[in-house]
């Protein structure tokens, strides 16, 4: 099929539709608005429902209801809206409901601004809401990858009965790139025996619930969730490697930041510096496997982020103190400039910084 030019936010919508998602509940916020705009048009064309909720809190809970009823369902927002959704996301994780939540990150904290950032990393990969839970968290770096990952996002959500977050920044949402939409086969949600759709007489009672009032039961629930998260950690780590094999200095960056870092690496290589990239595609589970491998041969690491240093903590955990891990970041909607990152790389490479 011929390639079409699509905006990142629209690609999320089209990818969701092609993944069999038929329900979208959301509340407007910049810089992700083209996604609800797109789905408001697209959902009725495929027999789906687009509903603008009264708040992000309500949207997350509408997702809860629709997911419990067995549907493939999605919501989307940006920083401040995701904060409001956290209550619902915790309940979704607690009740083990599959769904997709999109966070098109903007500058913060507070109202911040509408410019791109990666400052919601902690919130996305360390919980965000109350309780002991994890989200599978996918971080695309191109519009094509958005299309591909949306299919996986819904499949992973159903496979593990867990919310999946698509984590990107405003640049990716606004960026237009040619994409191959793939075949026309639209996926269907799998049969969900556990969904509460009306009890047949004599059939099993279905309960969509996150309440375990007896501490022993609640502990068992948490342990079971934790075992699920362990399986996901083992099975679902994804990353991209770029000019990594002989790299003495390894940059770790995700999303838009990783694209900038690829340019940095190309320039560094031209100057004879052995620099490579690890781009986490899953930021949770964090790709510890590749870092465990590379930490044996690399001499130092540099985490480049659009925040004040969040993912760098996971890089340090993965490197386990065996090699120095450095950080370079821009915040508030400012993007790292390739020239500046290259300067940082040169300084580190030549032993100029500790």
């Amino acid at each position, binding site marked *: 099929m011929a390639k079409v030019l699509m905006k990142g936010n629209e690609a999320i919508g089209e990818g969701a539709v092609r993944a069999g998602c038929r329900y979208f509940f959301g509340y407007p916020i910049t810089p992700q608005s083209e996604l609800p705009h797109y789905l408001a048009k697209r959902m009725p064309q495929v027999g789906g429902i687009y509903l603008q909720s009264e708040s992000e809190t*309500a949207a997350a809970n509408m997702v809860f*209801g629709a997911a419990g009823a067995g549907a493939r369902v999605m919501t989307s927002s940006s920083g401040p809206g995701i904060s409001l959704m956290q209550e619902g996301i915790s309940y979704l994780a607690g009740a083990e409901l599959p769904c997709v939540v999109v966070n098109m990150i903007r500058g913060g904290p507070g109202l911040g601004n509408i410019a791109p950032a990666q400052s919601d990393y902690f919130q996305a990969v360390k919980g965000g809401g109350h309780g002991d839970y994890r989200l599978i968290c996918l971080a695309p770096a191109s519009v094509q990858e958005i299309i591909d990952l949306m299919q996986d996002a819904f499949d992973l959500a159903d496979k593990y009965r867990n919310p999946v977050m698509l984590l990107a920044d405003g640049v990716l949402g606004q960026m237009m790139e040619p994409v191959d939409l793939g075949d026309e086969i639209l996926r269907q949600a799998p049969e969900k025996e556990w969904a509460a759709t009306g009890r047949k007489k004599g059939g099993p*009672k279905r309960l969509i619930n996150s309440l375990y009032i007896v501490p022993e039961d609640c502990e068992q629930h948490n342990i079971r969730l934790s075992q699920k998260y362990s399986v996901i950690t083992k099975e679902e780590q994804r990353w991209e490697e770029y000019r990594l094999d002989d790299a003495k200095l390894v940059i770790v960056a995700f999303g838009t930041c990783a694209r900038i870092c690829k340019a940095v690496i190309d320039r560094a290589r031209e100057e004879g510096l052995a620099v490579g990239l690890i781009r986490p595609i899953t930021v949770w589970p964090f790709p510890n496997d590749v870092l465990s491998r590379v930490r044996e041969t690399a001499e130092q690491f540099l985490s480049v982020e659009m925040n004040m240093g969040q993912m760098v903590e996971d890089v340090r955990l993965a490197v386990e103190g065996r090699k120095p891990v450095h950080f370079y970041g821009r915040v508030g909607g400012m993007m790292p400039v390739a020239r500046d990152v290259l300067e940082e790389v040169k300084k580190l490479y030549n032993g100029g910084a500790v």
Partner: protein
Amino acid sequence: MKKIFTRPEALTDLPFHYCPGCTHGIAHRLVAEVIDEMDIYERALGIAPVGCSVFIYNYLDIDMYQAAHGRAPAVGTGIKRVLPDRLVFTYQGDGDAAAIGTGELVHAAARGEKITVLFINNAVYAMTGGQMAPTTLLGQKTTTTPYGRDKDANGLPVKVCEMLAPLDGSAYLARVSLHNPKHIMMAKKAIRKAFEVQMRGDGFTLVEILSSCPTNWGLPPLEALKWLEEKMIPYYPLGEYKTPAEEVQI
């Protein structure tokens, strides 16, 4: 021998955990009886609140959901949009529906969401320890209004049916009471009517059910029912606040 009274099929045989004199058990039974009588067991989906009655999911023998505090109307919206031919009802206390969940309640009504809210008003937060609710009466003592609710300090009680009636999306709104057998029968009729209106697709429906909380009111069960009748009903008048233009036959 003709059987004239039995346990509703939609009610499990688990003993209720409620305090003596609490009317949640009566309300649960009425819901189960209506589900039986409408022969809608396989299509009924209930949403439990946060609060004393969260365990309604153990007592109703149907598929159930448990929602976050106040969010049941949003959860109900999600369910009903996916399964439009089901009966979807929430069961919420006054803290749940009239305080933390006011936004979800008002907007579900404004959208004309085809769900039913069963709103248990006992004028107090019960499970959390008898604090003031939005529905607490003026002068009523609670653990957070130890000198009685004062309008300047604590604001005025919220009348939910009256608040929702002007919204065009609301199709049926009624306030009933469980303080005596006659009113219990009237409450059952209102619940059935709300369910019928929902299934007919007319819009949002709500039945406010005035209920007793002897424990947090500090009254013996019978005195609690008397207090409900003498103090609550004058401030929260019973009756239908909104009915569909075309009468539903029940």
